[in-house]
């Protein structure tokens, strides 16, 4: 029996809705809801997480992220300038660095600085310095690429118009090119902060005192308590979202602004 495309599309959509409704009904009927709520989000256990999860864990997550970002941005600027340098060895070194740190897991970098170097050289960085270096080295590679792309995305005509008004190279870069590049770079840079926020959970691997716990470690320790269930992890997850969701919205806001700017 022949069906038109339209009929077939309708049938397919109908089946998808039917499956969805059946699964939902089955879940509602079969699941042990009181047990699930008790294990996954028990309000009492959730309340016990406060204020520690905010004043210790969330605070530390923010500190680790910020430390990583400062090192990442500084390193990223240097690497981006190296990558655009007219001196070839600078470009090669920057490329090597960027490809290396974008290509290996951040976990490996944390292990190297947290355990590898202390074991090999009998020398241990301060906890915060370890985090700063490990997070920053990886972030620098990603940030460098965003910055380079941003600088190159500013049309050549902008630089030429600035120079033809009598501006020096440095003046044209500072007044005309870099401000535009920064706007182009803002969305990927905000995105990098989101990635860093999540990557700061790798601090979990390092030995540390309770006062240095960040969200993931804090949640992990709390689920060991009797009858805690999953609730502490859920609360920790919500704390991450409190940081990352607004940043995501900000990124999209920047993106639509940059699109507008590029059209002219």
């Amino acid at each position, binding site marked *: 029996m022949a069906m038109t495309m339209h009929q077939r599309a309708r049938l397919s959509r109908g089946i998808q809705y039917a499956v969805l409704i059946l699964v939902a009904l089955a879940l509602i009927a079969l699941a042990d809801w009181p047990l699930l709520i008790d294990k996954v989000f028990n309000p009492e256990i959730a309340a016990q997480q406060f204020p520690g999860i905010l004043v210790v864990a969330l605070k530390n997550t923010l500190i680790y992220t910020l430390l990583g970002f400062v090192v990442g941005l500084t390193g990223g600027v240097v690497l981006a300038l190296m990558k655009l340098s007219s001196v070839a060895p600078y470009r090669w070194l920057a490329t090597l660095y960027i490809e290396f740190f974008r290509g290996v897991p951040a976990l490996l970098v944390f292990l190297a600085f947290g355990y590898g170097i202390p074991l090999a050289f009998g020398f241990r960085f301060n906890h915060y310095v370890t985090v700063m270096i490990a997070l920053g080295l990886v972030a620098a590679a990603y940030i460098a690429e965003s910055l380079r792309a941003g600088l190159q995305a500013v*049309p050549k*005509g*902008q630089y*030429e*118009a*600035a*120079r*033809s*008004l*009598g*501006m*020096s190279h440095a*003046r044209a870069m500072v*007044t*005309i090119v870099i*401000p*535009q590049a920064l*706007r182009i770079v803002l969305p990927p840079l905000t995105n990098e902060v989101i990635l860093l926020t999540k990557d700061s959970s790798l601090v979990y691997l390092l030995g540390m005192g309770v006062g240095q716990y960040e969200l993931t470690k804090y949640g992990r320790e709390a689920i060991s308590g009797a009858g805690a269930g999953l609730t502490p992890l859920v609360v920790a997850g919500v704390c991450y979202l409190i940081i990352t969701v607004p940043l995501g919205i900000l990124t999209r806001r920047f993106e639509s602004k940059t699109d*507008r*700017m*590029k*059209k*002219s």
Partner: protein
Amino acid sequence: MSTASSPTPRSGPGGADGLADAASVVVEGLHKSYGSLEVLKGISLSVGAGQVVCLIGPSGSGKSTLLRCVNLLETPQQGRITIGDFEVTDPEADVDRMRRHVGMVFQQFNLFPHLSVLENCTVAQLKVLKRDKAEAQRIARGNLERVGLAEKADSYPDQLSGGQQQRVAIARALSMDPALMLFDEPTSALDPETVGDVLAIMRNLAAEGMTMLVVTHEMEFARDVADKVVFMDGGVVVEEGPAAELIRHPREPRTQAFLSRVLNPTQVQAPER
């Protein structure tokens, strides 16, 4: 107000550079290559002070390259360029100083999108000429009025039509009190209905005695405004002469072929006629 249309007296060391209010341009034996591609093969050309010269020629003939050599956006390999008494091609020349007095208008406008219309017209006055803010804004507003866009001072470039953007670009260049204006196909990227506004401003400028070197395909403009038309092809000047004469009675076959294509574009599309 009369100050809007009268040229603002030049402040600063313009005269000391040998760049008078309206400077002449002399190009002699100019060569420019990109790698093995020779784009300009010995160009000589002159524009008298206060004159308008239109450069015409087919695509790829080197018109833009020539214009960009005049303010050294491109570096020629050989030849001499002088603007007024200022030798542009002198290796010791202070290029930034020369460019302050040479306005350039691009086909793609190249307004600064992160700055308002007023800021576009003041940024170089402030950062390059070191004028104070009030004076720079007064000069910028005067020039925006001159191009009929005084009310757009606080808009951003992306809020303007192409024709309006190009008029702002002209006001931006004029705000530096140029001794010479270079135009590279200023109306080629515009909608037909906005071309007239830009050309009208250029006509006024010419009437006020601005030295202008204009790459254009607007033959009517060239005929009415230019003192001289220069036809370029393949990196050389094929023919030059008084505008009306060259456009009406071109001597060289290549000029004739080009002009008949530009003046009667339908013939190309409908060869059976």
